[in-house]
């Protein structure tokens, strides 16, 4: 156990790393009721998965979890209720990572807990916006 917690300033020298987003999709969890233990187990899985990537200093932002409320706005001011519903899966969340390549990011995606729930992960490169 490291009782010596020395904080030294490491200038963050990232070689040209790029940022990638992971978009998590799965069928709505609405129907599936998890027991409290089940919920905690899933939480733990996500925490361990993301923590492992964060430990490599490759997590930019844990991002966000999206809830079940939704509205779709289409051209012509058409508004419908519910999340995007062209397919049966909805987006559950999004996180941002840094990696050398999309392949590296995809490797992490392979161990994402959402896959155990029958969901999938879309990995996308991020266009850096200036200003």
């Amino acid at each position, binding site marked *: *156990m*490291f*009782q*010596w*917690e*020395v*904080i*030294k*300033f*490491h200038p963050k020298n990232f070689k040209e790393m790029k940022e990638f987003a992971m978009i998590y999709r799965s069928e709505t969890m609405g129907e599936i009721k998890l027991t409290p233990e089940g919920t905690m187990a899933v939480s*733990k899985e996500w*925490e*361990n998965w*993301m*923590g*492992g990537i*964060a*430990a*490599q*200093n490759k*997590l930019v932002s*844990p991002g966000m979890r999206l809830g079940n409320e939704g509205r779709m706005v289409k051209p012509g001011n058409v508004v419908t209720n519910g999340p995007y519903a062209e397919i049966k899966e909805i987006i559950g969340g999004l996180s941002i990572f840094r990696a050398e390549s999309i392949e590296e990011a995809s490797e992490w995606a392979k161990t994402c807990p959402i896959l155990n729930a029958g969901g999938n992960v879309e990995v996308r490169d991020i266009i850096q916006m200036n200003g």
Partner: protein
Amino acid sequence: MQEKELIPQLYRTEFRKITAVLCRLFGIEHITIAEDIVGDTFLLAAETWGLKGVPANPAAWLYVVAKNKTRDFLKRSAIFNEKVSPEVQYSTDESHEIEVDLSATNINDSQLQMMFAICYPGIPPESQIGLSLRILCSFSIDEIADAFLTNKETINKRLYRAKEKLKQDQVKIEMPPDSEIGKRIENVLTTLYLLFNEGYYSSNRNTVLTKDLCLEAMRLTHMLTENESTNKPEVNALLALMCFHASRFEARVDKNGELILYEDQDISLWNKELIKQGEYFLNKAAHGDVLSRYHLEAAIAYWHTAERDSPEKWEKVLSLYNRLLMVEYSPIAALNRTYALAKVYGNETAIAEAEKLGLDDSHLYHILLGELYTNVDKQKAIGHFTIASKLTKTSADRNVIRKKIEKLKK
């Protein structure tokens, strides 16, 4: 012989106190003059005490000399007098003596206000911290250079530029307005944390603890909690963290000054009062909806003081390290997280994760791997400990590592 140890100790505790008061007196444009006057005071002490012996009240002696030097300086420098704010000159009818108020209250107030003045967003973070270490913590330029893993010249330039910028922007030495305080406090807390760690584990002096630094860090942090506008949850969390760590002071070092590892410590030597205080501040910190990194670290420290070993503890600690890393990455958190992972999921799992960390240059990384390989692959364990021994900077570390290698070779 005694005087030789006394002056460095006094320098540590008194330099910054007197400097803070003088800085506030002279204004932000004349920080260097304040430093010089106090520096001269100590030089005089070194010369005089060697010959005439140590005075009965060394600190008081220093204060008197500093006051005299300040008055002399102000008298000599007519232009300076014009610039010194009128409030400063408490002139009475009989004498035009300038009061240098070195009371405990003014020392406290001056330090607090200097803390904020120095942690000014207009200068880069490392300059804020460098200047704080110099003015508020009596750090030498060498010590600051070590903290930043750089050299003296860089630090001197950095501090010079920082002071120039403070001068340019006419930063006032006073408490910041409530609207700015949240942001400014973040920087202050980082400095205080650094200060505490520098004392808790000193890597540039070959002694393990400099209790004074830790106590000063705690005192300054505590000062923030006593002031309504700075009494924020994260400040209390940081103070809790410091208390928990400090509670193990007596247990960390044996009679020979050797470092005792956490798992070998005598629990009866852990300071229960400090642990209670830590819990008190941790409770105070549990207000509001912001979970700062200090909250997470304090919670981790709490688990380490509450129990030595239990499956629940390590699960909680792992979860806390996960969350800490998600808030802010640090190499130490990454290593400690891996250790907790080992406790929960076994050494092999942890080894696989450890090898992804990219921290091969760190002696702590090799110590971790040495630990993890200990009951798994003796040769690899010894290999890593050996590398660690070469990479580490302090003899205290080297001793600990040497013992581990010896234990493995049996």
